[in-house]
């Protein structure tokens, strides 16, 4: 019996337990080794005039996060302390192609890089701040398939020009008043840019008479382009390893040196913004390695830089040190989404010596709450479990915060270093995915859901009293 058992055991152990093993390896999804080459795009070929007139209303919001990139607006007049139950009065509304592209405002004109779904074209629309009627539109045909929306960037405006970056990384520069086409760059074709998943989220930067772009291509990482001519003024070489993220370049002065800070997929970098070595990499770190990055870096005092992202990345705080013209960067703190201020789509606001933002959905019990953090990203307080938001935008308007949730509910709240005090709350948009950043010009707030942009009057009008 024991002999039989030994033979049976020997036979059992001698058998291959699994005859067919299916290893999980790359390529099991049937994705072709090479995708078809993108069609060539002739940038700026479409133009159409409209009936709109530029407004004389005050106020400007000339780029992503406003004139000083802080997302802090100074209203031209006091804002109302309360709203009617159905929200502040709507001055005008326009339909947009599906997406998150948001407006910039200057000289009574509202600019938004829309996607015209009928023409299949990126379309820079210039609207009147008065009534939303279109002054002109300039665009180009480009095939975009719906992939969590179609559009998602904000133009940058100088006194003469408007610069846009489209979903497939087409850069266009036109005259701000007339819409006359000046120049265009297809970053994918010219620099070998890999367009991020869900399309380009990088908003262009105008610094003086230079447009600053981060194509993160095979040879060029960042470059400055003359606004008038489209000629490259300086460029930062690329190793090709760091890729374009959904984040945007932030200009700032760190330890006395002006620089452009950018969070690429691969790492964080500071590039000289002035001087004879403009375009030189001053410092870089690969410690910030989030695979998807939408928020822009936040430059804090004393050489600190705060970065955050979704997809479980959490956030990090870096400190830049300077010794003459040499810069180094070190990690101050690294934390997961449950352990500090983590934002997925919107960039935190630094105000009153504190960081503010809406936490990610994977932030544990505090998920999607509005939160205040110290300059290390440590949470000081949150809005509470009954006051949650989502991926929507938030900004400072004078002495209060404006926060939009996913479904178009706008909240006005007094916020200080100690607490969150709601002032008013109303559904102002009917649709979903209200994720495009807001813009405040004068006392008019521009905001959108996935399909429609509206202009609200937040001032002390009779309707708001």
């Amino acid at each position, binding site marked *: 019996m024991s002999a039989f058992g030994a033979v049976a055991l020997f036979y059992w152990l001698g058998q291959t337990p699994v005859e067919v093993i299916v290893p999980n390896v790359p390529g099991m999804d049937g994705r072709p080794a090479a995708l078809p080459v993108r069609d060539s795009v002739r940038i700026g070929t479409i133009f159409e005039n409209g009936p709109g007139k530029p407004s004389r209303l005050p106020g400007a919001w000339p780029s992503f996060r406003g004139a000083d990139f802080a997302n802090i607006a100074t209203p031209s007049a006091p804002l109302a302390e309360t709203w009617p139950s159905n929200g502040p009065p709507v001055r005008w509304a326009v339909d947009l192609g599906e997406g998150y592209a948001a407006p910039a405002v200057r000289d009574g004109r509202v600019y938004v890089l829309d996607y015209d779904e009928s023409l299949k074209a990126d379309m820079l629309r210039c609207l009147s701040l008065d009534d939303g009627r279109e002054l002109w539109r300039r665009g180009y045909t480009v095939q975009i398939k719906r992939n969590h929306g179609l559009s998602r960037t904000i133009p940058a405006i100088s006194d003469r020009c408007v610069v846009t970056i489209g979903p497939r990384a087409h850069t266009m520069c036109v005259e701000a008043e007339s819409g006359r086409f000046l120049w265009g760059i297809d970053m994918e074709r010219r620099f070998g840019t890999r367009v991020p998943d869900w399309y380009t989220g990088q908003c262009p930067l105008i610094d003086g008479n230079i447009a600053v772009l981060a194509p993160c291509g095979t040879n060029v990482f960042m470059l400055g382009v003359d606004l008038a001519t489209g000629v490259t003024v300086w460029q930062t070489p690329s190793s090709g390893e760091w890729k374009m993220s959904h984040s945007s370049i932030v200009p700032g002065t760190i330890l006395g040196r002006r620089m452009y800070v950018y969070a690429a997929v691969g790492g964080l970098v500071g590039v000289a913004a002035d001087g004879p070595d403009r375009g030189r990499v001053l410092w870089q770190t690969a410690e910030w390695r989030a695979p998807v990055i939408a928020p822009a870096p936040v430059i804090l005092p004393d050489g600190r830089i705060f970065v955050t992202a979704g997809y479980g990345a959490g956030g990090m705080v870096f400190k830049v040190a300077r010794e003459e013209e040499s810069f180094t960067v070190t990690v101050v703190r690294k934390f997961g989404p449950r352990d500090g201020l983590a934002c*997925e789509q919107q960039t935190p606001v630094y105000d009153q010596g504190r960081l503010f933002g809406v936490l990610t959905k994977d932030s544990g019990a505090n998920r999607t709450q509005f939160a205040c953090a110290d300059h290390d990203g440590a949470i000081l307080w949150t809005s509470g479990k009954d006051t949650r938001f989502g991926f929507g935008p938030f900004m400072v308007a004078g002495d209060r915060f404006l926060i939009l949730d996913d479904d178009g509910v706008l909240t006005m709240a007094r916020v200080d270093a100690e607490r969150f005090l709601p002032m008013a709350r109303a559904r102002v948009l009917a649709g979903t995915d209200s994720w495009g950043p807001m813009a405040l010009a004068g006392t008019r707030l521009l905001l959108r859901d996935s399909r429609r942009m509206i202009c609200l009057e937040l001032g002390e009008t009779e309707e708001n009293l």
Partner: protein
Amino acid sequence: MAEPVRKVTLSRRAFLKSSAGVTALAAAAAGLGLRRSAIAGDTVWQIDPDKCVQCGRCATSCVLAPSAVKCVHAYDVCGYCNRCGGFHTPTAKVTDTAAENQLCPTSAIRRTFVEDPYYRYDIVEALCIGCGMCVKGCGSFGNGSLFLQIRHDRCVNCNQCTIARDCPAQAITRVPASRPYRLRGVQGRSRDAQV
């Protein structure tokens, strides 16, 4: 729902499990006649996807092994993204099908290229253990098209569901047997939704 597609031959572990499964199935079948009168036409257990917090207990608390809870995919809610919060680990550097980039511990989600930039994600039910890791990822970073449901072709409808007892969110309640699933998407908007 997708049919299992992986070709898997019988392993020692599978043999032992299937033996246990047959025994359990026989016991369940024996008991079925006794309890049918009590449940038929009445109520069955189901998960409310809007209450589920993906704690993982559905995979471990069920009297069945693997659990009667499976992931379900509402295709009309899915974004068909290249980077999928339900399929890829949050920190995946590369969005491919390599094991190290997959979130599911049993590789129960099959990813198929449709056309640039779309990918389809199917649940391989034979491999799904109902852990909810993909559901958490999809809800945190995607549209929430993946969700957990008690599959009534497996559930033995215990008088006291052990998962419901252990659920920290009280997400499992009895629902009418005539509408045994709580779905999302177009099917979820139908009163008489059926999987």
